[in-house]
């Protein structure tokens, strides 16, 4: 190619790009106009839903939406947001502020539910529920998210709990019997110690860097993050004990990577899947990872048992989080969106294997759910084991997170300050004190007391 030819080739390329970019816009408006004309003819009912990339790709969500359309005649259009579970809401936040009309938002934890519900972004469901005498309280019980103004903005579709997953191969290799449930944290530590084998690079236990690990013991004792007067309750001795307990697991007992090691090696949320850890204390959403053997090929089998309780016998609680659906205040199709939210809240659990947020289900319904999960796991975990670990035990249920005014910031503060304690750069008392002080300020700024 001579220079002249090269030049003209470049011009042609450029022109074609301009054309493509321009056409891209053109075709969009075309499709929009055909949409509206169709709407004029048939009045097709549509509901638009934000979904994160993971869920949008999943077979369950597609199936669920199809079944919904079959049952109600309402078509579902997904507005897929790329990015991980945190980034997704950064985009949705900006969308909301600029008046985007997508109907339904799924809110994956109580802090988000509170953030969207309490700040006037969601459509109140009360009138629609009243119209058809829908008794949400009866179906969802305490899982139904409450708001300061007494209204209902969110119907829950999932109430996750916590459990201990264990790697049977590591237990077998160490000649340790599998945990049988009904155990205390001391038993957990003793078991993990037997499994830990530094020569082979194996730790008996694995935990992540989520905020609630910093205070899980306090939550098990059902100690609130807020005092009656609305200020932070972090100076309660339970929080101090909980933070020390978590730090000691890595720093003193050495049954899991210390905080410093976890952070400086950038260990990841799916680290347990690598097969180097004996037990993993985590929420039940984690079950899905064991089903996915293409992403996580493994040569070991997994077991599940209930979470350990504090040795003092006063904190016999499991904890977990509620996720649910809300409707955008600016929704284009609010009534159809309500139908969607209701249907999903009632039926989601049948598709994804997550624990339902319904209190009106029969034993058979639950068993069917567990049997399905067990089948999907190729029988690695039986339905009965799931039931025993999660439902049929004598554990109570509390919220896993601290939720209330300023809870996002509260959570950040806990992580920042605990970080300094866990790497040994701040004393326990100073840490607790600065959490309390900073959290009080954050609560005040957020309009609490």
């Amino acid at each position: 190619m001579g220079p002249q030819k090269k030049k003209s080739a470049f011009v042609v390329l450029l022109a074609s790009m301009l054309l493509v970019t321009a056409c891209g816009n053109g075709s969009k408006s075309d499709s929009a106009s055909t949409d509206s004309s169709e709407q004029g003819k048939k009045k097709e009912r549509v509901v638009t839903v934000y979904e994160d990339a993971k869920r949008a790709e999943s077979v369950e969500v597609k199936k669920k939406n199809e079944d919904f359309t079959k049952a109600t005649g309402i078509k579902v259009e997904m507005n897929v947001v790329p990015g991980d579970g945190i980034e997704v809401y950064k985009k949705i936040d900006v969308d909301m502020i600029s008046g985007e009309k997508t109907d339904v938002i799924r809110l994956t934890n109580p802090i988000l539910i509170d953030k969207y519900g309490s700040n006037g972004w969601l459509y109140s469901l009360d009138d629609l529920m009243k119209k058809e005498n829908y008794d949400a309280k009866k179906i969802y019980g305490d899982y139904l998210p409450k708001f300061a103004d007494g209204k209902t903005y969110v119907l829950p579709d999932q109430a996750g709990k916590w459990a201990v997953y264990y790697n049977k191969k590591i237990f077998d290799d160490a000649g340790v019997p599998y945990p049988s449930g009904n155990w205390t944290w001391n038993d957990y530590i003793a078991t993990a110690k037997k499994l830990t084998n530094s020569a082979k690079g194996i730790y008996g236990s694995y935990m992540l860097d989520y905020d609630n690990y910093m205070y899980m013991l306090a939550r098990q004792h059902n100690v609130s993050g807020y005092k009656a007067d609305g200020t932070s309750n972090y100076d309660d001795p339970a929080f101090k004990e909980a933070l020390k307990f978590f730090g000691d697991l890595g720093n003193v007992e050495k049954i899991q990577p210390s905080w410093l090691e976890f952070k400086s090696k950038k260990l990841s949320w799916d680290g347990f899947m690598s097969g180097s850890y004996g037990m993993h204390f985590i929420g039940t959403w984690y079950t899905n990872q064991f089903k996915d053997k293409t992403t996580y090929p493994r040569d070991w089998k997994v077991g599940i048992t209930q979470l350990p309780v504090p040795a003092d016998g006063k904190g016999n609680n499991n904890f977990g989080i509620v996720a649910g659906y809300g409707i955008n205040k600016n929704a284009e199709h609010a009534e159809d969106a309500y139908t969607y939210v209701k249907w999903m809240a009632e039926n989601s659990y049948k598709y994804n294997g997550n624990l339902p947020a319904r209190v009106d289900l029969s034993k058979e319904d639950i068993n069917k759910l567990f049997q399905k999960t067990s089948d999907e796991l190729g029988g690695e975990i039986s339905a009965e084991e799931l039931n025993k670990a999660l439902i049929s035990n004598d554990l109570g249920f509390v919220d896993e997170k601290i939720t209330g005014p300023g809870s996002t910031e509260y959570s950040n503060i806990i992580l920042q300050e605990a970080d300094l304690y866990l790497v040994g750069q701040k004393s326990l008392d100073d840490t607790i004190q600065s959490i309390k002080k900073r959290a009080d300020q954050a609560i005040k700024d957020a309009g609490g007391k």
Partner: protein
Amino acid sequence: MNRNAKTAKSSLLSRVSQLAYRETGAALVFVLPFIIGFLIFNVIPMVYSVIISLMNYNSFKPLSMVKFVGLDNYVRVFHDPIALNAFVKSFLYTLFYVPGLIIFSFILAKLLNRTFALRGFTRTLILMPYVANVVAVSIVWSILLDPFGGPVNQIIQSLGFEPPLWLSGMKTVLPTIAGVNVWQSLAFQTIVFLAAIQGVNKDLYEAADIDGAGRWRRLWSITLPVISPTTFFLVITSIINSFQNYASVRMLTNGGPGTSSRVISLNIYEEAFTLNHYSYASAQAIILFVIVLVITIIQWKGQKRWVHY
């Protein structure tokens, strides 16, 4: 001749083309398209920033509920130890980062300008850290600088020194991040220096050779003065950028341990996107803007001493 003929016609077209011959007119034609776009795409968002910083948009609520609160957000910054600390951290970071970046990239550019085997190949390698994924960079350095028997600390230990905690130490974290970032962003400054060094008129070197000037003398009295406009550009923009690169800090430490590496850009980002404190974040951004502007104006005034156009 030709020009005069055109003027005689005095059609609109020729008057426009005449502009190119008059300096102010030419300037208008050259600058105006840019200025129009600049006003739309840069100035409007800037003005918005100033306005929103005077509002109480500090929670995730509809814009219609936002109220004017004057300078409250600015006052609040001065009572916020985390924000003040973040300004100080950013300042310290700049002190580590900018000199390191300018010195290393200049040396590297000088080296790459010499002839050696595989020069094109090596020059291309310089670009590698720059285009490498920021996650990959942070993971690689976490492994190399791992306080638990990472390769760097093993060497330090075998030499009989106390190995530092690097990214996990309160005192070491900022210089470590600065070092990693110098290494990673070296390519741009190096290539700009390289382009500038190539603009140095060879005649000047020849004349210096005749005068019998040594290598250092040539560097000092020819290369550095001639490329000083470029150096000036790099210093100014590196300082501006050093106050803004939250992306790498976020990946390397996310501000930790505690708040030891929480620089102001990260603080602003978190305030805006995690906590939805839009007004407060804007106020911090405007304060940062003023600080950087003052630094830049001081440099602008000071350039007469060392920049030779």
